[in-house]
């Protein structure tokens, strides 16, 4: 049994192209609320691009040079936008009951992405090398220590936090977003709730 052909078959069956990138959607995908997910992805792309530039030039650049500080500002506002859109996307998914009809794992992957993003932002805040970082690190350490995490995740250690922020965490977030998107595409958008009442229109009954 060839492992390669087995994997090839599994991939082509499990991840068909027309499912991953469909050119049509159910007609009920008819609201601006469906755009918050993609706005979150857009913000993440910006975070990665500005983050790569900040990492390439280093801390002295983002504090000292005018252009460096501007990229610091871009990264800051991209982070704000990322959380802004992600939270509103979460509200949307909640009010749609988007986990219905076998979409539980899609919801779980989204919530995990949100929680991991919070840790990612935290490692960024303590990597800035300004008063904000000093304060957040010294305050955050008590919380980390109180549950034992501080023993191996030392928020006062710039080298460790910076490594987490510029490599480990972005890779994890990107991976989670990849899983989330794949699940969204494979399972499709959830059908609208049936309207309650005697004249119930069974427009979204699961076949």
């Amino acid at each position, binding site marked *: 049994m060839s492992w390669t052909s087995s994997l090839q078959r599994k991939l082509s069956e499990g991840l068909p192209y027309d499912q991953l990138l469909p050119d049509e959607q159910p007609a009920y995908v008819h609201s*601006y609320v469906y*755009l918050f997910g993609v706005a979150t992805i857009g913000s993440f792309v910006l975070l990665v691009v500005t983050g790569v530039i900040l990492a390439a030039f280093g801390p002295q650049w983002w504090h000292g040079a005018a252009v460096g500080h501007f990229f610091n500002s871009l990264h800051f506002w991209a982070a*704000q936008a990322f959380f802004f859109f992600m939270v509103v996307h979460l*509200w*949307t998914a909640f009010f749609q009951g988007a986990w219905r009809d076998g979409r539980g794992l899609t919801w779980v992957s989204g919530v995990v992405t949100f929680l991991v993003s919070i840790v990612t932002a935290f490692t960024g805040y303590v990597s800035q090398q300004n008063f904000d970082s000093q304060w957040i690190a010294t305050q955050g350490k008590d919380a980390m220590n109180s549950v034992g995490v501080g023993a191996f995740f030392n928020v006062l250690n710039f080298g460790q936090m910076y490594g987490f922020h510029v490599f480990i965490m972005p890779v994890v977030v990107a991976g989670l977003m990849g899983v989330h998107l794949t699940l969204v595409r494979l399972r499709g958008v959830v059908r609208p709730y049936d309207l309650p009442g005697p004249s119930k229109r069974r427009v979204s009954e699961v076949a």
Partner: protein
Amino acid sequence: MDAPAHYFHWGFILISTANLIVIALMILVFAAAILVPYPSGKGKQR
């Protein structure tokens, strides 16, 4: 922008103007996304 922020204080709630604006905007944008009519396109039956 670097001067200490202004804060709103209601009971035990204390929030900076900037955070309040961000949270209010999130609610507004969410409401607008729901309420603003979405342009209709042509569809086809499957």
